[in-house]
Each structure stands twice: as C-alpha cells, then as structure tokens.
C-alpha cells in the first residue's frame, strides 16, 4: 500500500515538474534572443536522423496492411475498396502513431542521452558561464525542431506507406498507379487529413519535451544518462497514446456537432 502511494506521489510530482518545464518553454520561446541558427541545425539533425527510419517504417506499414487486408476484402468481393480503406487507416491513425513511436524511439532517447551527458559533464554549466541561456539554446531549439519536423516526416511516411500499398495492389490486382491514387484521393477528405496532421504537431512537441525534460534534469552520473534515455522513450511513448486518445476524442466531438 505504501509502495503504491509512493508510486502515485512520484508520478504526480513528475507530471508537475514536466508541466513546469513546459511552462518555462513557452516563456522562453517568445523571448529574445532567438537561436535561429541552432534551430535550423536541430531541424536538419532531427529530420536527417529519422528520414530513413520513417521511410522504411512507412513502406512496411503499407505493404503489411495491404497484404493482411486483401484476403478479407476478397472474401466479400470488396477489393476495389482497398485504396480507400488503406489510405484512411494510414492517414488518420496508423501513419501518425507508428511513425511518431519510431520517431520517439530514435529522437527522444537521443535527446535524453545527449542532454543528460551534457548535464553530468558540466557542459550545460559551461554554456551558462559562456553567456548562453542553455535552456533556450538546448531545450527550446530541440522542442521546436521535433514539433516542426514530425508533421513533415509523417506526411513523408504516409506517402511512402501508400506507395507500398500500391505496389502490392499492382502486383496482386494489376491496378495502375493513376487508378490507385485516384481512388485514394477520392476517399480522403479534409476531415481525415487536417486533424491527423494537427495531432502530429502535439506528438512532436511531446517527444521533444519529454526527451529534453529527462535529459536536462538528469542526475546520478553516467547511470542517470542511461535512465534518462530509457525513460524518455517510455514516457514519451505513453504520452503519445494519451494524446492520440484525446485527439481522436476531440475530433469525434467536433465532427458529431
């Protein structure tokens, strides 16, 4: 019982500290000086480090989803619905969530480990002494970079996933590229694309925020660096599912009205 109380207590303390950290981000993001050069460097780094992973993941999602669904649709004589079904699943849910999860695995752990090791080796202190606000230089730029880059990566990953799906359809059903993508765009509506894209900004923000929070508050030497990297992935992945639920819930309410 005491252990459970302690767990709950530490969870709420963690959430409180994370909220305070997010509040500091919003205070610092709008105040001068702006670290544009570092932001661009981080955007390039975050995007470049993830693009291959996102491409491969997207491609495999497209292949697998089509291969798994085909037999069922064939049974009902509804194979012609394949592009519509696959595109809606990928654009609305599977693409953003799976790509955000792989992004979290790659980027949140990287940020957690990088900032954690900077913290334990006093590099963050050295930055402060050098007249730089380390929060602005390290944290704000990284959170902005993940927030801006994830939606672009998701769009890229979704496109690759649809292309993967097309390849299977082309091989198995002899469907042309133009026909397949005509059916995809006929099925998709703005109400599928816009909410799905908006939620990826929140996913990106959450991944950057948790990675930076864990790394920036890293303690206990090199062991702490490992813990920071590990818990950054676990916590950000959990947060993604919570955010996804909220996003779907809000979208549902919005479109029912």
């Amino acid at each position: 019982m005491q252990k459970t109380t302690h767990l709950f207590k530490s969870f709420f303390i963690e959430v409180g500290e994370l909220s305070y950290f997010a509040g500091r981000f919003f205070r610092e993001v709008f105040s001068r000086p702006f670290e544009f050069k570092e932001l661009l460097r981080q955007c390039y780094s975050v995007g470049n480090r993830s693009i291959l992973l996102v491409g491969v993941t997207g491609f495999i999602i497209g292949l697998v989803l089509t291969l798994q669904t085909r037999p069922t649709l064939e049974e009902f004589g509804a194979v012609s619905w394949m592009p519509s079904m696959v595109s809606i699943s990928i654009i609305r849910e599977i693409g953003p969530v799976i790509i955000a999860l792989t992004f979290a695995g790659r980027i949140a752990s990287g940020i957690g480990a990088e900032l954690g090791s900077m913290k334990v080796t006093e590099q963050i202190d050295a930055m402060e002494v050098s007249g730089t606000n380390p929060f602005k230089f390290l944290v704000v730029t990284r959170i902005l970079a993940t927030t801006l880059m994830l939606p672009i990566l998701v769009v890229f990953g979704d496109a690759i996933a649809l292309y993967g799906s097309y390849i299977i359809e082309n091989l198995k059903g002899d469907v042309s590229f133009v026909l397949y993508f005509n059916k995809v765009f006929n099925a998709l509506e703005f109400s599928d694309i816009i909410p799905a894209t908006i939620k990826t900004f929140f996913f990106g923000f959450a991944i950057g925020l948790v990675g930076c929070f864990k790394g920036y508050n890293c303690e206990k030497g090199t062991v702490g660096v490992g813990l920071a990297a590990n818990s950054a992935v676990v916590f950000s992945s959990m947060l993604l599912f919570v955010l996804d639920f909220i996003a779907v819930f809000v979208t549902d309410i919005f479109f029912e009205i």
Partner: protein
Amino acid sequence: MNQKQHIHEVEGLSTKTRMLEIKDLRKSFGNNHVLNGFNLELFEGENLVIMGKSGSGKSVMIKCLVGLMQPDSGSIRVMGKDITKLNRVELDDIRTEIGFLFQGNALYDSMTVRENLEFPLRRHKQKFGDIKDTTPLVTEALESVGLAHTMDLMPSELSGGMQKRIALARALILKPRIILYDEPTSGLDPITSKEIIELMRRVQKQYKTSSLIITHDVDCARVVSERMILLVDGTNYAEGTFAELASSKDEQVKAFFK
C-alpha cells in the same frame, strides 16, 4: 572559542584592488549546511588557493561565484558588483571577465576544438563585437597552451591533459581578468599535473589575471599559491601563505599537508 586561526594578510595586498569579495556566504541543501559564513577576498594579480576536503563546499562556493547557484545569504562582489543582485544581462556581462576551468573540463563534445573556443566569442559580442574571422583569437589562445595544431580535432581525440589545456584556452579566449580553477590537476598523472601547474603560472604572467584555485593537491598549492584559505565545515578555518600554514601546529591544518 573555536580553533579558527587567522594568519593574516600577506603584506601589501590590502592596497590592491579587490577583484572578488565574498562575505558571510551561506548555502544549504535541506539539512546539509554546506557553506556556513564563508569569507574571501581576491586581490588583483593574486593567486589564491582554497583547500578543503571533499564535500567541504569548495565547488558550491565557486558555482555561487559565477551565478550557477544562488546562495541562501551573503554577498558576492565581482569587481565591485554584487552578482546576487544582477539581472541576466548584467550577469552575462560580468561573466566575460571571469574564465572558469571546470573540474571535468566541460568541453562540448559535439564540437571541434575550434568551435569550442569560438562559442564564448560568438556569445559575448559586447566585448569583441561581431567578429567575422575568429581564427586569430582562437590561434592565440591555443598557442598560449601549446596546442595550436589541435584546432580541427574533436575533444574525444585528445588526451586528458590536452583536454585540460583546451579547456584553459577556452577560459582564456575572452581575456578575462579573473580565472577560477576547479580542481585543475584532478584525474591527471603527476607529470601532466606539473605541466598544467606550470601552464597556470605562465598564463597568469601572460594574461595578468587574478586566479582563484580550488584544489586538494598540495603540490599544486605549493607551486601556485601566494595565499591560501583552508575551508573546513563550510567556513574559513585558516588563512595564510603556504609556508605559514604548512608549519602550523594545528592538527586540522597539519592534516592537509601530510
């Protein structure tokens, strides 16, 4: 009456400008009272060594000095300005006059040696202006530590002693008037330690800096110090020249020099 020993000032120091002045500095972490009314004066051109056991509050004191930690009470004046009352811009301004050599060097490991040295230059534009070509300043700082050839290497490609020298070059690049050394010889072999101590003396002559050196290395203190303060339980236990303290009859003081 406690055992506090006040072996007083080396002659002539009181007439010099005070670069640093700490009065009644206190800092606690929960129930752990790390600094209990520590006092310090560093005069222009002086080498002052602070010696103390691990956990005696040396690093906390030096972090309070550059504004990395806020003291609970007391005043810290750097070149006449109380840094506990400065805003961020004013604090950054005063930091251009302080070079800090970290215990673990704190070189940015994702940057080359050149980028490490350029970093403070680009940040403190108010001192040097917006420098287009930083190469002459970087080269000068690297030459002063004898490592001009390492400019394009990464810190991980350098030995511990070389990293320490690069960290010193980075501390010197803004041409500060005060240098703070946090355990400059810790983790180094005896030969490299001697080289670093010699370098510290050479740098002080070349750049005419005032130095505050935190160490528990007696050899370093003997060679470098002009005056010493022994820090025990977060307060000044004894003060004087190396020779004065080394010949003290006080058991606690003698323990430092065994």
